[in-house]
C-alpha cells in the first residue's frame, strides 16, 4: 500500500509548486534574454498550477482543476502572442536583450 505516491502529502506538492515559482522568479529577474524571461514566467505559471491541482485534490473540488485548465489555455494563447511580440522586438533591435527596451524609465 505504501507506494511512494501515497506517502506524498500536500506539502510535497506545494513545495514543488513553490520551488517552480521561485525558480521562475529568479530566472525572470536574473536573465536578460527575452525568450528565457518569457519561459521563466511560464515556469511561475506551472508552479501556481501545481498548487491549484494539489488543492483541488485535497478538497475534492473541481474548481481548482477548472482553473488549471483556464490557466493552461490562457498560457498557450499568451505564448503565441508573447513570442510574436518578442519576434517583433527582435526585428526592431536585432537583439533579445531586455536592457534594450528600457525607455519606460521615469
Amino acid at each position, binding site marked *: 500500500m505504501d507506494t511512494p505516491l501515497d506517502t506524498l502529502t500536500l506539502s510535497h506538492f506545494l513545495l514543488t509548486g513553490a520551488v517552480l515559482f521561485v525558480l521562475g522568479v529568479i530566472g525572470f529577474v536574473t536573465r536578460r534574454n527575452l525568450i528565457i*524571461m518569457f519561459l521563466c514566467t511560464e515556469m511561475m505559471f506551472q508552479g501556481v498550477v501545481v498548487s491549484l491541482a494539489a488543492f483541488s485534490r485535497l478538497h475534492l473540488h473541481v474548481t481548482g482543476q477548472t482553473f488549471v485548465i483556464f490557466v493552461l489555455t490562457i498560457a498557450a494563447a499568451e505564448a503565441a502572442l508573447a513570442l510574436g511580440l518578442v519576434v517583433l522586438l527582435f526585428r526592431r533591435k536585432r537583439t533579445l536583450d531586455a536592457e534594450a527596451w528600457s525607455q519606460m524609465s521615469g
Partner: protein
Amino acid sequence: MDLEWAKLIPWIAALGAVLCGICCMNRRLRKLAAPVCIGSLGLSFLLSVLVAPGVHRFDPQMPADKLAKAHVVKAFEWIHVGGLKADFAYFLDPLTVLMLFVVTGVGTLVAIYAAGYMKGDRGYARFFAGICLFIFTMTTLVMADNLLLLYLGWEGVGLCSYLLIGYYYDKPSAVAAAKKAFIVNRVGDLGFAIGIFWIYFSYNTVSISEVVRIAAAGDVPGTDSAKTWIPFLLMLGAFGKSAQLPLYVWLPDAMEGPTPVSALIHAATMVTAGVYMIARLLPVFVLSPYALPTVATIGGVTALFAATIALCQYDIKRIYAYSTISQLGYMFLGVGALSAVGGVFHLFTHAFFKALLFLTAGSVMHALAGQVDLRKMSGLRHKMPITAILMLIGCLALSGFPFITAGFYSKDLILASALEKGLSEHNPLYTVLAVVGLLTALLTAFYTFRLWFRVFTGPVEYEMGDQHHGDEHGHGHTETGKIRVVHHHEPHEMPWLMNAPLVVLALGAIFAGFFGVGEYHGWVGGSLDGSTAHIAAPGHGDTAPLTLLGMNLHTAMMVISSVIAIVGITAAAYYHWLNRAAAEQFAERFPRLVRLLADKYYVDELYHAVIVKPLRVIGELCYVFDRLVIDGLVSAVTLVPKGLGWAAKCAQTGALQGYGLGMAIGATVVVLLVIIKVL
C-alpha cells in the same frame, strides 16, 4: 398747485436729458437739443414756482406721520432692506423751494445763454444732455427726502461735473481736470457715505425729516461719539463738493469745462450743495460742540486763502474760480456761525452774480477766441459795452458795493452774524473769523476790480486766443477752434440771445439782496426759519442788542464793509486802470510772495508728491508683490506634488527585471504580513 406735482420737477429734466441724448444720435436732430433742454428746464422752473405756495413750513415738533404727510412726496420705492427704507421721495420745505428756484432758474438762464455760446460745437447735443442730467441730479439733491437719495444726487452732480469738465475730451488737461474733480469729490463723498452709515446706525433711519426731528428734540440714541463725529464726516462731503480746504484743488482745474458749465455747476449750483447740506442738517451739526466752529474756521480760512491766490492769477476763469472758493468759504462761515440764513442768503445772491460773472467772462472769451489771459486784453469796453456793464454789475455785487448790490447785504449778514456770535458769547474764534472775513472782503474787492479794469479799461489792446482745444490731428471742432474761424477779425458784442439771460442775472445781482433784508431777513430768512435749518436760538433777543462803534452791530458792520469795498475798488482802480505801471512795481517788490501766490501755494504739487505718487508706487509694489510673492507662494505649493513625483520617478528604471523584482518583493512582503497577522 398740489404738492404731488413737485415730483415731476426732476423727472422733466431727466426726460430732457433722454431727449437730448436721442438728439446726439442724429446730425439733423442735434440742433433740437438746445430748445429741448431750455424747454424742460423752463418747465421745471415753472413747476417749482407753481408748487412753491403750497409748501408748508417745517415744524420739528410735529409727529412723524403728520410731518411726512405735509412735506414728503413719494415717487416710487427704491431700497427697502430690513429696517432701511429709502425711496425716491421728495421733501419740500421753504429751503427746498429756495434751492429749486436757484437751480432751475439759473439753470434755465444758463441754458439759454449756452444755446448761443455752444453753437456750432460738435458735441452740442451732448452738452445739453449733460446740462439736463445735471439739473435732474441737482434737483434730486435738493429735494431728497432721505440721505440715500441725497447721496444719489450728490454723486450724480459729481458725475455731470465730470462729464462736462471733460467735455473737450480730446484735450488732455480737460480729461485730467475731470478725473481730478471726480476723485477729489469721491474722497469727500466717502466721508459723507460713512456719515450716512453712522446716522443710520444711531438714528435708525435715513429720512432727513426724521433725523432732523430726532436731532432737534435732542434725544439721539447711541453714544456721544456719534453726536460728535457724524457732523465731521458729513462735513468732509460738504468740503469736497463745495471746494473748501483741503479738498478745494479740483475747482480751479474744473475751469477746463465750457464756460456755461463753470457758471452753472462750478459757481451757482453744484458747489453750493455742501452749504445746502449743512443748512439742511443743521440740527445734527448743532449736537456736536466742535462741528460748527470747525465749519466756520475752515470757511473763513478758505475764504482768505483762495482770495490771496486770486490776487495773482491771470486766467480770468481761474480768478473767478478762486473767488468762488472764497465766497463758498463765506457761506460756510455763515452757516458755521449758526446763521444759516446768512449762508443760504449768500448762496442765493452769489448764484446770480457769480453766474453773471462767469457768463460775461465767457462772452469775453467768445469774442477773443478763447483768450483767458488778463495780460492780453485791455480796453474792451469800447468793443463790448453791454458786456462791460453787465460784468461791472457782477463785480460790484461780488465786491459788496454798498446798498445797490445783492452781495453787499448777504456778505454783511454773514460777517455781522459771526461778529455777533463772537462778541455775545465771548468767543474769540468767531471775532477773529469776522475780521478775517473783512480782510477777505478787501482782497475780493481788489481782485475783482483788478480783473474788470484790466479787461475793460485802458487802451484797446487784445490778442486773439491761440489755444488749441482739441487735438493736433485736426479732428477738433471745439469751442475756440470754431469761433476763431467765425470771428477772426475783432471782438464784438454778443447777440441778444446770449445777453438777455445775462440781463436777468444782472437784475438778480442787484435786486436779489432785497429778498433777504427787512425784519427777520425777509423772504430768505422766513424760508430758512420754516425749514429744517431752523434752530431755536438760545436766549435770542433777551440780551441787549450789541453795539460797535456806538452803532447797532449790523449797521456798524455795513459801514465798515462799505468802506472796505470802496477802498478795495479804489485801490484796484489806481493800480490797474490809472497807473498800471505802479502795480508791476509793487509786485516786483515782493517777488517771492507773488510767485508763491501765482503758483497757488504749491498745493497741487504737494498733493501729488504726498498722496498721488506714493499711492501709485504702492500700487506698483503691490503688483510686483502679487506676481512674485503671492503667485510665487502658489507656485511653491505646486512644488509639493512635483517633488513627490520627482522622488517617485527614481523607482521607474525602465528595466523589466527591476519591475519584476519589485513586484516579487512586494508580493513577498504582503504574504509575510498576512502570515504575521495570522500567527
